[in-house]
C-alpha cells in the first residue's frame, strides 16, 4: 500500500480523510497540526516560559518533544512537571520515562508528589474512600488534586502557560461527558486555551486536534520512549464514553473531529451564559478557588485527612 502523497510505503490509513500516509508524511502532518494549533489560538508567544505536564505516557511525552522543539526557535523556556500521584505499579513505571525524556531534551524537570503535598498517595486516599463508602470515583480525587498541584507547580516555576497533552480523543470525550452529565460549567471551560485568572496559570492544549492513534504512531515512528499502560483506576463512565466514541469513529469516520468542531462553533455563544465568580483563597492551602475551601481540600477533609491552615 502506497502513501497518497509521496508513493512511499504507507503506515497509516487516515480514514476520516480518505488518505494513506507513509512514516514521513504522517509525522510531518502531526507536527503541522501542532504548529497550526499553536499559531491559530496564539498558545505560545516568544520569550514565554512553558510548563508541560508530563506523565511519561505517549501524549505528554510527544507534547514535550514538540513543544521543546518549537520553543527552541521562539526563545521560549520549557519546564516539565510530573505529578506523582502514588499509583503503585503504574506511575512508578512512567516516572523514569518522563525524566529520561526531559533529560534527553535538556529541559528543567520537576516532580511533585501527592504524598508530599497532601500527606497521602492516591492509593491511600482511594483505600480510605472505599472504607468510608465514598461515592466519588478515584479519577475525581486524582483529577482535582493533580490539576491543583500542576497549577501550583507551574506558578512557582514562573511559567506563563501550562501545557497539557489532551488530544482529539480526550477533547471529544470531555465534551460528550459534560453533555451526558449536564455539566454546563465544565463544558463551557473546554477549548484550546483556558484564559488567565488570578492565581491560575493559563492552560493550553496544543495537541487538541491530533487523534490519539496518530500521536501513538508518531512516538513509535520517531522511536520516542513512552510508557504504554492503562491506569488501574480507569473505568466507569469515562471509559464507556471512550469506547462508544471509538466504536462510532470506526463506523462513521470523522465523528471525533465533528464533535470538537461543532463545540468550537458553539463556544463563543456559551461564554455569556456563565456567571463570573470572584476568586478567593482556600482557607486551608491558599490556592485560588471560587469558594472558601478548594475542591482538593474539601475532598480530603471529607475523608478525614488533616489540612493545615
Amino acid at each position, binding site marked *: *500500500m502506497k502513501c497518497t502523497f509521496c508513493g512511499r*510505503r*504507507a*503506515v*497509516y*490509513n487516515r480514514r476520516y480523510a480518505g488518505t*494513506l500516509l507513509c*512514516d514521513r508524511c504522517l509525522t510531518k502532518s502531526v507536527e503541522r497540526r501542532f504548529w497550526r494549533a499553536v499559531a491559530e489560538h496564539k498558545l505560545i508567544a516568544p520569550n514565554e516560559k512553558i510548563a508541560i505536564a508530563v*506523565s511519561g*505516557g*505517549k*501524549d505528554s511525552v510527544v507534547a514535550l518533544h514538540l513543544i521543546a522543539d518549537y520553543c527552541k526557535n521562539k526563545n521560549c523556556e520549557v519546564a516539565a512537571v510530573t505529578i506523582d500521584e502514588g499509583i503503585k505499579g503504574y506511575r512508578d513505571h512512567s516516572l523514569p520515562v518522563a525524566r529520561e525524556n526531559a533529560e534527553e531534551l535538556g529541559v528543567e524537570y520537576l516532580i511533585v508528589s501527592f504524598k508530599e503535598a497532601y500527606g497521602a498517595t492516591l492509593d491511600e486516599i482511594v483505600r480510605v474512600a472505599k472504607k468510608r463508602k465514598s461515592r466519588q470515583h478515584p*479519577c475525581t480525587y*486524582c483529577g482535582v488534586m493533580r490539576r491543583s498541584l500542576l497549577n501550583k507547580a507551574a506558578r512557582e516555576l514562573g511559567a506563563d502557560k501550562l501545557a497539557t497533552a489532551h488530544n482529539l*480523543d480526550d477533547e471529544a470525550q470531555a465534551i460528550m461527558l459534560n453533555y451526558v452529565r449536564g455539566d454546563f460549567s465544565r463544558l463551557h471551560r473546554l477549548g484550546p486555551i483556558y484564559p488567565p485568572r488570578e492565581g491560575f496559570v493559563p492552560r493550553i492544549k496544543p495537541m487538541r486536534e491530533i487523534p*490519539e*492513534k496518530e500521536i*501513538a*504512531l508518531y512516538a*513509535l*515512528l520517531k522511536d520516542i520512549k513512552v*510508557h*504504554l*499502560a*492503562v*491506569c488501574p*483506576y*480507569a473505568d466507569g463512565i*469515562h471509559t464507556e464514553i*471512550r*469506547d462508544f466514541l*471509538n*466504536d462510532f*469513529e*470506526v463506523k462513521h469516520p470523522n465523528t471525533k473531529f465533528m464533535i470538537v468542531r461543532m463545540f468550537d462553533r458553539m463556544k463563543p455563544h456559551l461564554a455569556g451564559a456563565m456567571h463570573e465568580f470572584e476568586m478567593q483563597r482556600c482557607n486551608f492551602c491558599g490556592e485560588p478557588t471560587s469558594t472558601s475551601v478548594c475542591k482538593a481540600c474539601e475532598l480530603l477533609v471529607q475523608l478525614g485527612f488533616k489540612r493545615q491552615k
Partner: protein
Amino acid sequence: MTKMIVVTVKLYGQRRTKKIKLTQGAKIADLLKQLNYNPDVVAVRCNKKIVPEEERLLNDDIVEIIPIVTGG
C-alpha cells in the same frame, strides 16, 4: 476448498505468542476483528514494520499488536 494462512500474534510487552488461522487474503483488519480489537485503539507492526489495517497478511507473518489507548 478455501486456502488458509497462519500468522503469529504477539501483544506488546508480552512474551507469549498465539498462532491464528485466517483465510488467504485476510487483512490486518480481519485479524483485529477476530481478536475483538477496535482498529482505533491499537497500532500494528507486521514483521517489525508499522502497517495500516488494510495491509494483507501472508502465511508466517509475525504481527505485534500495540494497545495505544493508555492513561486514565
